[in-house]
């Protein structure tokens, strides 16, 4: 290859690590990636340090794939650093795109989370009430931990983002499409979400007829038949409001869509869109009946409507406890 190699960085913030695995799902194509790019920073696989990134010139990294939401000061620092050092910053996966699963913690605040994690869980023994502190004095000096924020944010609520690769995790084909687009310099306009502009339903092979639901069922309550639309069978399938691009993988294995690809273009609030769509299929006209169907069938509305998008949504998190409460 005569062309000079590009520089690629991958980073994770508040995420589970699945996005890292998704990159490896590229399979043998990962060799093509390695041929086109020098991977200059990828904590999970490459032994480069933060200091090495800090010593780079601004804009020296060609592409940075950043997965994970922003929950701590360290993650915010890394987001700012990688933004400065990268020409193209891609929010990779649901967490950096919309907040993802970590953002459901916006239903609680830092104190509640710490109390659950470090005090209340049955397997925790913490008689002295020790909680992580940003600074701890030990004989050898001061130890530092990142500051844990009350609110989980998306990457683009922290720094400007060029592209979004949705999905939990993004599908390998889509990652490859994005990498090819970068290599061939055929990237769309900045700010684009790299997916299809249609819904999962459009790509789902199941048979659809009129949707009328008298009851929402949870996945453990039924074994759905393999042909009919899952929503028509009463399962809360998010395909109607979710961006296509995954190939409707979940409905094809009898599992309802959980909405990881997020909203389509022009939709400001994923959950609101899903609520509007689901409300339309409820087959009842009396307020009591409607309320019963919704409250019985959807016991966890935030987890159902905003499973991946609470940080990105219009919902401005639960009220924070006042100082001292």
């Amino acid at each position, binding site marked *: 290859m005569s062309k000079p190699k590009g520089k690629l960085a991958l980073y994770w913030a508040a995420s589970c690590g699945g996005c890292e695995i998704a990159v490896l799902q590229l399979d043998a194509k990962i060799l093509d990636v390695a041929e086109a790019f020098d991977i200059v920073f990828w904590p999970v696989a490459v032994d480069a340090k*933060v*200091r090495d990134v*800090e*010593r*780079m*010139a601004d804009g020296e990294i060609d592409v940075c794939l950043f997965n994970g939401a922003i929950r701590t*000061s*360290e993650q*915010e*620092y890394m987001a*700012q650093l990688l933004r400065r050092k990268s020409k193209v910053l891609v929010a990779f996966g649901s967490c950096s795109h919309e907040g993802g699963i970590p953002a459901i913690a916006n*239903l609680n605040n830092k104190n509640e989370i710490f109390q659950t994690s470090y005090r209340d869980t049955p397997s925790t023994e913490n008689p002295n009430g020790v909680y992580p502190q*940003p600074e701890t004095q030990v004989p050898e000096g001061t130890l*530092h931990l*990142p*500051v844990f*924020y*009350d*609110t989980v944010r998306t990457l683009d609520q922290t720094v400007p983002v060029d592209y979004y690769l949705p999905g939990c995790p993004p599908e390998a084909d889509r990652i490859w499409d994005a990498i090819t687009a970068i290599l061939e310099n055929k990237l769309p306009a900045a700010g684009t979400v790299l997916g299809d502009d249609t819904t999962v339903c459009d790509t789902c092979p199941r048979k659809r007829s009129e949707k009328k639901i008298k009851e929402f069922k949870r996945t453990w309550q039924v074994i759905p038949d393999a042909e009919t639309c899952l929503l028509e069978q009463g399962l809360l399938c998010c395909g109607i409001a979710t961006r296509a691009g995954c190939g409707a993988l979940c409905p094809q294995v009898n599992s309802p869509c959980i909405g990881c690809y997020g909203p389509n273009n022009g939709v*400001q*609030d994923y*959950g*609101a*869109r899903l*609520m*509007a769509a*689901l*409300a*339309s299929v*409820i087959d*009842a*006209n009396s*307020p009591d009946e*409607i*309320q019963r169907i*919704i*409250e019985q069938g*959807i016991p*966890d*509305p*935030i987890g159902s*409507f*905003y499973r991946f998008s609470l940080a990105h*949504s*219009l*919902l*401005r*998190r*639960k*009220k*924070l406890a006042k100082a001292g409460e």
Partner: protein
Amino acid sequence: MSEPFEPKIVGFLCNWCSYRAADLAGSARIKHAPNVRIIRVMCSGRVDPTFVLKALALGADGVMVAGCHPGECHYLEQNYKAMRRFHMLKHALQAMGVDDQRVRLVWASAAEGQQLADAIDQLVEDVRRLGPLNWPANWQEDAQRLKALEKIAHEHAEAMEVLS
């Protein structure tokens, strides 16, 4: 120092019934609380949950959605759709810790100026009792965050200075 709390209410009123009820209330000189900012929509079924959430996210303390009585919709049955969406939305807002008194679905026909005025007064009174929602402020992080960031940048400054 601080002024007494005046609730900000956004009202989505349907063109065919509730907006006319508001008109009627006006021409009949029925008095009601001035806190509602009315937005006319063609039908209560046009009110996407996004509208309500956006109003709250931009600082409204309460939202009223008003339409024709069930069975009297100008578009046959879209107000039933509004009803279902409304229950869905209320369910989600409750889970977010927003009191369900803050969002209200009201039916008012074009002849019910008085009823609409009463419903507005009632909503304003209930929200006044609940106090400000102040949703945008929930989003703000305390100053600890910026201090922590500065500290990391400071600690790492040495490395950053090598090139610059």
